[in-house]
């Protein structure tokens, strides 16, 4: 099913001309998707696509040998952290991962002190995950290196949105014109926010489907159509993205019970029927089987792209590391 060749540019981007001799991705950091122009998103996806192919043929070039990558995770994570580590190592970087429990953050050091300390170690890339919205951009203000947001609070998770987009593009051949439903806990989801920004920037019709208590205020203003009913929300969809329901939300009285949530919003074969026959089912993981997604759907090879998402995760992160380090040293020289 996988389309191995590099797909054509999105139709409406074909007319755009790459900046002559310019930098196709002039950002210093990758802190979020909001505000990135579509051609820059396209460029990141194109680069990542190349790494996806290299990954399949197991041809890695240690292109970034000698550069240092620090992964700083203030929130527990397995797949994102692993994915960044593997991506860095495949590019030949020295990767150091640093997690909350072993660091001095718990001893009361402030976020900015941590940033200054890390900056003094002169890394080339800092990958940060933090439980508070805006914490990564605050930290980036103190860093001379490239900073990648690996998820900040309920704000953004740009590499997840990029890997989702890459998966969709490989399976569907395009993003433009697709109808994509994002379902579940939209309110607390940084994945949902980044995806809404990215997919609508690339010309998809984005829907969000959630119980009213899990919809952010004025969600439609982000450019998504809002549904509170799975049947209407999934009608005619090309892609269904499920989100993880964080069980700790149950205490906040956002939902009556897991059982009721699964009944109305859990993805089952039945609920998938109004979608297109070749619908693609995605999930950022880790899944709560029987809460937001039924096992039969999650493991259905015809529809499910969940494994491919993980694979694309490494490719996208390799792409981001590659692109962000290209101009690193011109910038530091300019700074001095």
């Amino acid at each position, binding site marked *: 099913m996988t389309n191995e060749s590099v797909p054509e540019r999105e139709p409406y981007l074909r007319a755009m001309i790459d900046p002559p001799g310019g930098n196709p991705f002039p950002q210093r950091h990758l802190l979020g998707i909001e505000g990135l122009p579509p051609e820059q998103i396209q460029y990141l996806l194109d680069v990542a696509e190349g790494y996806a192919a290299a990954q399949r043929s197991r041809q890695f070039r240690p292109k970034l040998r000698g550069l240092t990558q620090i992964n700083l995770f203030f929130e527990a994570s397995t797949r994102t952290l692993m994915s960044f580590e593997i991506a860095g190592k495949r590019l030949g970087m020295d990767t150091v991962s640093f997690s909350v429990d072993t660091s001095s953050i718990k001893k009361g050091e*402030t*976020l900015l002190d941590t940033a200054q300390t890390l900056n003094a170690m002169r890394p080339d890339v800092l990958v940060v995950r933090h439980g508070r*919205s*805006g914490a990564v951009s605050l930290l980036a203000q103190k860093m001379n290196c490239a900073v990648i947001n690996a998820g900040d*609070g*309920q*704000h953004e998770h740009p590499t997840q949105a990029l890997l989702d987009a890459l998966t969709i593009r490989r399976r569907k051949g395009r993003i433009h014109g697709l109808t994509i439903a994002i379902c579940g806990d939209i309110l607390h989801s940084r994945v949902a926010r980044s995806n809404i920004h990215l997919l609508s920037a690339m010309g998809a019709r984005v829907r969000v489907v959630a119980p009213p208590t899990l919809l952010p*205020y004025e969600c439609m203003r*982000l450019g998504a159509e809002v549904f509170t009913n799975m049947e209407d929300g999934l009608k005619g969809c090309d892609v269904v993205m499920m989100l993880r329901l964080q069980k700790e939300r149950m205490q906040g009285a956002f939902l009556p019970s897991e059982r009721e949530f699964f009944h109305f919003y859990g993805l089952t074969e039945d609920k998938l029927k109004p979608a297109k026959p070749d619908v693609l089912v995605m999930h950022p993981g880790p899944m709560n089987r029987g809460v937001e997604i039924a096992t039969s759907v999650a493991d259905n090879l015809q529809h499910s792209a969940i494994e491919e998402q993980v694979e694309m995760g490494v490719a996208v992160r390799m792409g981001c590391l590659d692109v962000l380090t290209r101009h690193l040293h011109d910038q530091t020289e300019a700074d001095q």
Partner: protein
Amino acid sequence: MTIKAFTNARLIDPASGRDEAGTLIVEDGRISALGHGITVPKQATVIDCKGHILAPGLVDMRSFSIDEKAAAAGGITSVILMPDQSPPLDDAAMIAQKVRTGSDGSLVRVHPMGAATQGTEGEAMAEIGLMTKAGAVGFTDGRKTIASARIMRRILDYARNLDRLVVQHAEEPTLAANGAMNESEIATRLGLSGIPTAAEAIMIERDARLVALTGARLHHAQISCIEGIDAMAGAKKRGLPMTCGVSPQYFILNETSVGDYRTFAKLSPPLRSEADRHAVVEAIRTGVIDVICSAHEPRDQDAKRLPFADAAPGSVGYETLLALSLTLYHAYDIPLMQVLAMLTVKPSELLGLECGRLEVGRPADLVIFDLDQPWRIDPEEFSSETQNTPFDGHAVQGRVLRTVLAGRTVYEDKDQ
């Protein structure tokens, strides 16, 4: 006996509506004569006001820190200190310790408010009677809302008996829980939890019922939104003894100031939408809002240089209070007399203070200011404890030239 004469002044007294060119004479810290054609006594020290405005010193009804240098620099001669200090002002001895009368060499008079509940924890009534005797001018839980209707009713009953004002922070705490900014599209985009405007209106409406039940006087410290203004206007229409205030942030800024997680714009209540800001201006014009306060709250770097949700709310306000309030006159055509009344006589009347008027026999707490002088707010020039203002670089008109406390000059603008 020391005599001072403030000559060549434009005397403005919002209490009496006086606005005339003239002279004001101060004897022993009190006003002894004022008006046009007053003869200056021979032994008097003459201070030439050069035609600038001479008005009563400002009375700031909501302050979280005495910060007296900054208050004097802002033309403020009386500050009402909120009880949520560390430790909270919830007993008579602590109140007595905070009172400053102005005759003790301090730069500003301090009138503390007592905690309405023990430790401002909202569970048991504090010693309101004893604190009244010690000099507490009113009772409030400061930044916290008195959430329990039962406790609020009892506090109101008690305060009515003592003829003290109760001040409420209008925010329904369960609805506002974890909120970091106004509930809006911007909050959604930034991934921050929002505080709905309904949280303010619900509390005002509930309190209005309790005021009707008890007959006590209640003041809502800060009104920030259309719903809150409607609730307040409704209560006033029913003749309830309710009043409210606002600080300049809410009629000058809106939620977009939060921008890219600017913690200096994190306030409580949060900055609201542009429509709400306009409604606040109109509520000032129509008199629904009674007083303007600074809500001066110095916060150091450790409390502000944090992720937005973890940062402490609040901003300094003393040194920008007058200039920002004059925006109402310069930009929105609200009469100067009305703006100054909201900063002087109205708060002093609500609290039963002696100051806030230009009248023979009253304390000579005065401010001399240039109504028109343009300047740009520069936190580096502040004399406050910290520099957390959301108005960095903001252009304003109107500058304090001299502040006088009980006849003593406590601040003079050196650049003039």
